[in-house]
């Protein structure tokens, strides 16, 4: 009861909180997108504040080519295992769900450990689709270490892991690398672009990604005069985090705050980062909507190359053709809200999705249709 009253007060406070015109806050994480729309937080925002989705739905940012590779593997007779979310995502010609219906061995699993078990039970070549962010990458790294330890030689990974900070940097167009960050010699101080250039006023930062990478991973935000708040997923977490963001925005304070201390330590989880770094190293990677971003993906290190499905199998895919009118890429950059897509809830609906932002339950298009 006391909690319900506290939540109501918090909600009222948000509704009447002062905020300048065109305040735009990006919720980076797909799990936040769903939590916000399910609890109706978007209806509690002051009139001048807009929440936009970011590139934090792993299924949504995975390029078509990856699905094409997975389909090609399945058609070679390889057992393909994946988190369930990926199965319905259309590649450029087919999806894993369609391939499964035509008889190829494609299985949804809850954990990469389940994939490992399938490999040791069935004895056939088994590939796990390694998709996700920093929350999931250490989990997959730990499973890779187990595969070597237990000598499960018929297990491998098709990787499309992605890292959140490089995507946020690309989104707010920070030059990548130290050299690029320096003003050219002899020109004096170059004007640093400000938050105004991006149209964003702050970031609601992903809770479980941050549990691994910690607060300091976002130090580039204050440098760009942008506040960020690491948030949990309950309505009161999200509302209080939004209040913190608006307060900082109003007062010109640019900090990264940890509003999820019951789960996230300020310095993240060192052990997880060690396991991740034992198995994977950064590599340039393609994102739907954002294009190629330096060091924003992960590939297996040389010591784990035996687990790389791309080295183990000859995977032939044609170049994917651009995806017609689907504007998922613009949705992922926070440039448009889903209803601005001409296909939204008409040709493209949750029961017959055309684009990945409608397929994934965490996709912005799907969340808009499901929860309004």
């Amino acid at each position: 009861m006391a909690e319900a009253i506290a939540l109501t007060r918090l909600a009222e406070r948000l509704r009447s909180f002062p905020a300048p015109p065109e305040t735009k806050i990006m919720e980076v994480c797909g799990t936040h997108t769903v939590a916000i729309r399910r609890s109706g937080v978007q209806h509690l925002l002051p009139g001048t504040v807009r929440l936009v989705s970011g590139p934090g739905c792993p299924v949504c940012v995975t390029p078509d080519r990856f699905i094409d590779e997975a389909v090609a593997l399945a058609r070679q007779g390889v057992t393909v295992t994946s988190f369930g979310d990926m199965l319905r995502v259309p590649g450029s010609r087919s999806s894993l769900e369609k391939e499964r219906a035509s008889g190829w061995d494609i299985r949804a699993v809850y954990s990469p450990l389940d994939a490992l078990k399938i490999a040791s039970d069935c004895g056939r070549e088994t590939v796990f689709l390694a998709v996700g962010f920093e929350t999931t990458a250490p989990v997959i790294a730990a499973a890779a270490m187990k595969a070597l330890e237990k000598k499960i030689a018929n297990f491998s990974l098709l990787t499309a892991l992605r890292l959140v900070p490089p995507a946020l940097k690309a989104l707010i167009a920070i030059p990548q690398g130290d050299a690029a960050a320096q003003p050219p010699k002899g020109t004096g101080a170059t004007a640093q672009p400000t938050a105004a250039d991006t149209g964003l006023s702050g970031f609601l930062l992903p809770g479980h990604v941050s549990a691994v990478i910690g607060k300091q991973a976002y130090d580039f935000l204050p440098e760009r005069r942008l506040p960020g708040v690491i948030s949990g997923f309950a309505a009161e977490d999200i509302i209080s985090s939004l209040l913190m963001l608006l307060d900082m925005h109003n007062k010109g304070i640019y900090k990264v705050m940890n509003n999820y201390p019951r789960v996230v330590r300020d310095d993240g989880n060192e052990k997880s980062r060690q396991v991740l770094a034992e198995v994977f190293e950064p590599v340039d990677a393609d994102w739907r909507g954002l294009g190629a971003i330096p060091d924003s993906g992960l590939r297996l290190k040389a010591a784990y190359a035996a687990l790389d499905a791309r080295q183990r199998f000859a995977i032939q895919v044609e170049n994917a053709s651009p995806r017609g009118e689907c504007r998922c890429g613009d949705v992922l950059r926070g440039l448009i809200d889903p209803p601005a897509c001409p296909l939204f809830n008409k040709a493209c609906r949750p029961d017959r999705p055309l684009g990945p932002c409608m397929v994934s339950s965490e996709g912005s298009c799907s969340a808009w249709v499901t929860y309004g």
Partner: protein
Amino acid sequence: MCLAVPMKVIEIKGDMAIVESAGLRREVGIMLLDKVKLKDWVLIHAGFAISKLTHKQARETLAIFEEGRFFG
């Protein structure tokens, strides 16, 4: 996809543990955390404990807002 649920450690077997919540039990990997102990609450994601929960509650944040101040 980064969904994670809190569960309680009830048995430890090397780098695996049995965790429980609301009567549901599951075996998970604990090699991503330092010093997991019996009765710890941990956050489970894709078959692994990825974080330990502290007893610091979200209520603290609420209390601060009740007082109506955050940044001075």
